C-alpha cells in the first residue's frame, strides 16, 4: 500500500516535472552573462551571448528577474540612439550578441540593493513558452 503510494507520488512527480522540464530545456547556450552596475536607481544594462544549439529557429521575446521590476529588450540602432525590440530571432547554429554599444537588456527598478560582484538571476523567455534561468554577474560601471 505504501509502496503503491510512493510509486503513485513518484509517477505524479514525474508527470508534473516533465512539462516544466521540457519548458526549461530550451536548446540554447548563454555565455558571458554580465550586468553593468550603475548607482542609485538608474537602469542597468545586461549583456550576454546567446547561441541556438537546436535545430529550429528560436525567438527571444523577453526577460524577467526577481531583482528588477521591469526588463526591456533593446536594440541600439546607432550611437546615441536605442530602440525597444519586440524580439530577437536566433537561427539554428547562430548566436546573437548582446554587447556594450549594441543589443542589451535594459534592467529597470531594482527590488533590492545590488552591488558589483553580486550574482543576479534573470530568466530569458522564448516564443512558445520556453524559458531559461541565467545567472548574471554584476560588474563595475566601467565594464567594457
Amino acid at each position, binding site marked *: 500500500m505504501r509502496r503503491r503510494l510512493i510509486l503513485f507520488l513518484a509517477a505524479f512527480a514525474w508527470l508534473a516535472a516533465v512539462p516544466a522540464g521540457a519548458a526549461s530545456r530550451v536548446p540554447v547556450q548563454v555565455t558571458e552573462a554580465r550586468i553593468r552596475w550603475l548607482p542609485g536607481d538608474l537602469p542597468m544594462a545586461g549583456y550576454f551571448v546567446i547561441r541556438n544549439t537546436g535545430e529550429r529557429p528560436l525567438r527571444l521575446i523577453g526577460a524577467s528577474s526577481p531583482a528588477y521590476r521591469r526588463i526591456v529588450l533593446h536594440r541600439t*540602432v*546607432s*550611437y*546615441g*540612439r536605442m530602440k525597444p525590440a519586440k524580439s530577437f530571432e536566433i537561427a539554428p547554429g547562430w548566436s546573437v550578441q548582446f554587447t556594450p554599444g549594441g543589443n542589451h537588456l535594459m534592467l529597470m527598478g531594482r527590488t533590492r540593493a545590488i552591488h558589483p560582484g553580486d550574482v543576479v538571476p534573470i530568466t530569458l523567455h522564448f516564443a512558445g513558452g520556453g524559458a531559461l534561468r541565467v545567472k548574471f554577474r554584476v560588474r563595475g560601471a566601467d565594464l567594457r
Partner: protein
Amino acid sequence: MTSMLAFLAPWEFSPTVLLACLGAGALYLRGAARLRRDGRPVGAWRGIAFFAGLTLAYLVLQTHYDYLAQHVFWVHRLQHLILHHLAPLLIVLATPHEVLGAGLPERLRERVLRPLWFSAPVRAVYRTLQQPWIASALFVGLIYFWLIPDIHLYAMLSVPLYNLMNWGMLVDGLLFWWLIVDPRPVAAYGTPGHVTRIAMLWLVMLPQIALGAYIALSTHDLYTVYGLCGRPWPISPLTDQQIGGLITWIPAAMMSVVGGLIVLRLWVRAGAGAGRRWGGVRREVCGA
C-alpha cells in the same frame, strides 16, 4: 503663434545675411519705384519671383530652420536645394540686375560700381566663371566637394566653413542659373547659345542623379557628423540618409528639367522676337 515666431527668430544671428537680404530687398523696391517714375514699370511677376527667392534664402539661412539643417542630413540637403537651385533660379528669373542697379544711389553706381564691374580683373574672373563648361563643373563640383564625408564633417563643425559653404552655394546658384535663364539675345551679349544651355543642364543633372542615388542607396552611415552631434528628434541615420539622398537625386534633377523648359521658351521667343530689344517689349512678345 509664439512658437512660430520663435521658429522665425535667427538661430545663429548673422548680420551679413540680414544686411544682404534687407539691402537687396530695399534696393529692389527703390529701383522698381524709380523705374516706374521713368515710365518703365517692372512686371509684377518679376517682383514676386525676386522676393520669393530672397525670402526662401533668408528663411533657410536665418531662422530655426538652420538649426534643423545643422543636425538633420535631409533638412540640410533641402536647405542646399533651396540655396543652390530654387532660390537663385527665382531670383535670376526676375532679371533683377536692372532694377537693383536703378535702386542704387546714382553716384555710387556710376562712379564706383560700374567702373569696378567693368574693370579688367572683375571681368576676367566673371568671364572665366561664366564659361559654360567651367560654370557647370563648378556647380556640380561644389555639391560633390561639400559632400565628401570628411569635408562635410568639418563644414558642419566649423561655423566659418559652414557659412562659406552656404554662401558659396547661393552665389554659385545665382551665377549658374543666370547663365541658363539670361534672356538677352545670344548674339549681341555673347551669352551661351540655347543648345549649350540645355547641354549644361543635362551635364549637371547626371552627376547629381548619380550622387543622390549613391547616397540614398548606401547601406552604411556616410555622414557620421549627424550621429556625433546628435539629432533633434529620434530618426534613424539610414532613414535620414535615404531621404537626403532622394532630395539630392530627384528634385535637384527636376530643376534641370524646369531649367530646360525655361530655355526652350527663351529659344522660341528668341526666334519670334529676333532683333527686338530684350527689356521693355517682353510682354508684347509673350502675347504674340
